[in-house]
């Protein structure tokens, strides 16, 4: 009745989160808790990556602004940021005025700006280009994401770690999909647990107990056994996360928007010290086709949200003493057309800057700003840095992984991390 081969295959490969074996559950009992013990120091080998997705196609030209060239002002008669408002980095390049906190971090050498990031034969579809960025494969449809593959490759490092990675949000990005490691999406801390009827809180413990008793049994049927063990593992690891985050007692005030609150949840998970290495959060709304500077949700406002959220997060991890262990990376599926459109907006484009932020980052401008004179046939920027070079740098120099195994081939590394 049981497809034994498949069952075994799954059973063995699901090492991290699915807790196919009870012995793994036993490991994480208070007292001799190797996981929590090792990770709670959060130093030395602990190197965390926080990925920030700017969903919709961030207008790179109005983020890292080539204000020194008249071509920018020619292409954007209505949308250009006036030179007086720019936060200058060089005589040519400056940041959008809403990036005040990031500018301070930049000045402190904590922000690397990788300019002109893209890939060959840019795809201007949100879906497809997002997939390309997430899978790190512009050529074929791929089932796994680049960080999912990293987690698979590194599975031995996560022995006993129940939450090697987590997405904050309601949909798991393909970036984190692997073959072996299971990454949960945590929309809210309150929601990431075995929920019971909120109207009858007094019933909660009884119900959880009943659930645990039933799923703690062994069954004569292997499917039922597998389902019960996985289910028990799900409930238990969620509960442990709930317990772990209680260690967080920061006084830093985050803005109330979902992006900043997502970053706060990441800080809480980090404070829990349960060995989570990859964290992911998304902010949407960057598809600014119309009234980009004035719409109800507009581009400057989004940049301000990013700026304030990252500022609170950075201050938080600094006061926790873990800023040294954390690198943040932003990306978006594409930049936008150089020339503004007739609706006071910008259409889908190609290359755009990425931000890599942290104490171990070599701050400054990296890569070349794409030319505004030499555009492609669509009137879009021609990329100067392949996005997989950014990934390769992070994989090799931050996460200590073999980038070739994960990205399929070798890409030139960039120097945005301190050695």
């Amino acid at each position, binding site marked *: *009745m049981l*497809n034994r081969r*498949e*069952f075994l295959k*799954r059973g063995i490969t*699901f090492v991290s*989160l*699915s*807790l196919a074996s009870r012995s793994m559950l036993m490991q994480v009992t208070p007292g001799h808790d190797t996981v929590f013990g090792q990770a709670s120091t959060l130093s030395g080998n602990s190197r965390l990556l926080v990925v920030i997705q700017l969903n919709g196609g961030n207008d790179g030209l109005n983020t890292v602004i080539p204000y020194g060239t008249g071509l920018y002002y020619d292409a954007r008669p209505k949308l250009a940021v006036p030179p007086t408002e720019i936060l200058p980095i060089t005589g040519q390049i400056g940041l959008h005025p809403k990036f005040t906190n990031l500018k301070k971090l930049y000045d402190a050498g904590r922000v690397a700006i990788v300019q002109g990031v893209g890939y060959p034969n840019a795809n201007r*579809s*949100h*879906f*497809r280009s*997002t*997939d390309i960025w997430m899978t790190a494969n512009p050529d074929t*449809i*791929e*089932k796994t994401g680049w960080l999912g593959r990293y987690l698979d490759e590194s599975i031995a490092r996560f022995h006993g770690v129940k939450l090697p990675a987590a997405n904050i949000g*309601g*949909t*798991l990005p393909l970036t984190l*999909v692997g073959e072996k490691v*299971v*990454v*949960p*999406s945590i929309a809210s801390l309150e*929601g*990431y*647990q*075995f*929920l*019971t*009827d*909120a*109207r*009858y809180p007094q*019933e909660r413990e*009884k*119900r959880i107990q*009943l*659930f645990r*008793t*039933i*799923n703690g*049994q062994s*069954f004569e049927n292997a*499917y*039922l*056994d*597998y*389902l*019960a063990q*996985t*289910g028990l*593992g*799900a*409930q238990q*690891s*969620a509960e442990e996360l709930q317990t772990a985050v209680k260690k967080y007692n920061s006084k830093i005030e985050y803005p109330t928007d979902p992006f900043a609150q997502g970053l706060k949840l990441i800080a809480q998970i980090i404070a829990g010290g349960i060995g989570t290495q990859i964290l992911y959060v998304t902010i949407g709304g960057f598809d600014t086709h119309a009234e980009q500077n004035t719409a109800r949700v507009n581009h400057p406002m989004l940049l301000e949200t990013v700026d304030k959220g990252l500022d609170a997060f950075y201050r938080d991890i600094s006061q926790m003493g873990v800023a040294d262990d954390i690198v943040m990376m932003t990306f978006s599926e594409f930049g936008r057309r150089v020339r503004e459109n007739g609706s006071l907006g910008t259409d889908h484009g190609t290359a755009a800057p990425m931000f890599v932020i942290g104490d171990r980052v070599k701050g400054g401008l990296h890569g070349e700003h794409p030319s505004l004179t030499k555009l492609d046939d669509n009137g879009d920027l021609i990329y100067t840095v392949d996005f997989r070079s950014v990934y390769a740098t992070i994989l090799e120099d931050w996460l200590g992984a073999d980038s070739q195994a994960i990205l399929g081939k070798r890409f030139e590394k960039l120097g945005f991390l301190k050695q």
Partner: protein
Amino acid sequence: MTVTAGETLTRRAFLDRTLLLGSALGAARATLAHAQTAQFDRDAAAHLLRRAGFAGTLEESDRLAALGREGAVDYLLNYEQIDDSAMERGLEKYIQSQNLNLTQFRPIQIWWLYRMIYTKRPLLEKMTLFWHGHFATAIKKVTVAPLMLQQNETLRRFALRSFETLTLEVAKDPAMILWLDNNTNIKDAPNENFARELFELFTLGIRDPITGQPAYTEKDIKEAARAFTGWTIRRGQFYFNASQHDDGPKTVLGRTGNWNGNDVIAFAVAERSTARFLAKKLWEFFAYPNPEPTIIEALADVYFANQYSIKAVMRALFLREEFYSERARFALIKSPIELVVGAIRQLRADLNLRVLPGPLSLMEQDLFNPPDVSGWAGGLHWINTATMLVRYNFANLLATARGGTVGVFAPESLLQGKSFPMPGELVDHLLQVLGPLRLSESTRQLFVDYLAEGGFQLNAQTIDNKVRGLIHLMMALPHYQRN
């Protein structure tokens, strides 16, 4: 005591569901196969309804059981005789009232979920879902939601027709052409993508399931790709671009001639390997994994004896003894769609459909967006700690839906017209409604004790607290994850 339906149950949802097996029933009853009635009991009917559809209420199972095995199978199969206009009208109204923008991804998912939840032709939607997984095409590359909908309508329209017709329609489907790059398949630079998947995943399979021999060669793919050159799209429709079609002779599956794409499909569907590949895949989707060779061969025979009729194959499949055997019962893992749609149908819930795509995505089944061209792997691949927690919390969401943005589940509707003097009887009834879920005596007793704790009295308070709680916990049983 006896319970009457509370006012929270919306009338429409209730009627929709109870009428499911309505009008065409009389006709089917006339041809009732009396010999099989005895063994085709409520549990067997519920089994058929879970597999050939998305589960249903006890009343639906009983009505199906009364038709006998053959009558029930024919009732489900001859769905064109079932009037489903109420669902179609309801869907139209829903689109209007909800401002459902069918050019977008989430709305088209909701559009299909509405059909699956409210249809009186469950097999039609189940077959469409099977074909969506078989000819797996994803919006992440196609990017145009209306083209995904168009493909979905094609799969629905040809779901039980000849496999040759269906495959040909899919080959001409704009979403498929974009998905497998056939729009770039031209005379001077053939693109093999479609031809390869046509053989590997849609028809022949890499190896014959019985002989284990390769079913085609790399040369067959190369030659077949040439036959599909010029099959492209223009203004959102299929277009045969003769100027980009390779008119030279090609040798495909042992036959040489100036073949076009339809010839290649005709050759492929005529191969025994295709019949076996399809028979095995259908059996594994609808019955159980690793079927015996005799089953595969018998279904392949039906396929050839009926001009590749999918309907004939499905009829044979649903009538086989093995389909009702112990081995088949609960031998599958519920896909997220089966879990969500099935629970809503079993419980006659009237949920706000907008709450469904999120959990479904986290359970790893995004309609119109399968992970790749091989579709969803299914089985235990659905199960991991992340997806299980979402399953449990969906169960809680459904069990505690008391109105507002989530929608309504009215537990009274399940208890209507029945009396439950003892807590054990109520537990057994709920286990029937949700399955049947067969538990060990000790596990069953845990539920009885929970219900009886502090004295059993079936009043509104008990229903709102304990019955909803039991539904949640029963849906969180490992047993409930099986189909």
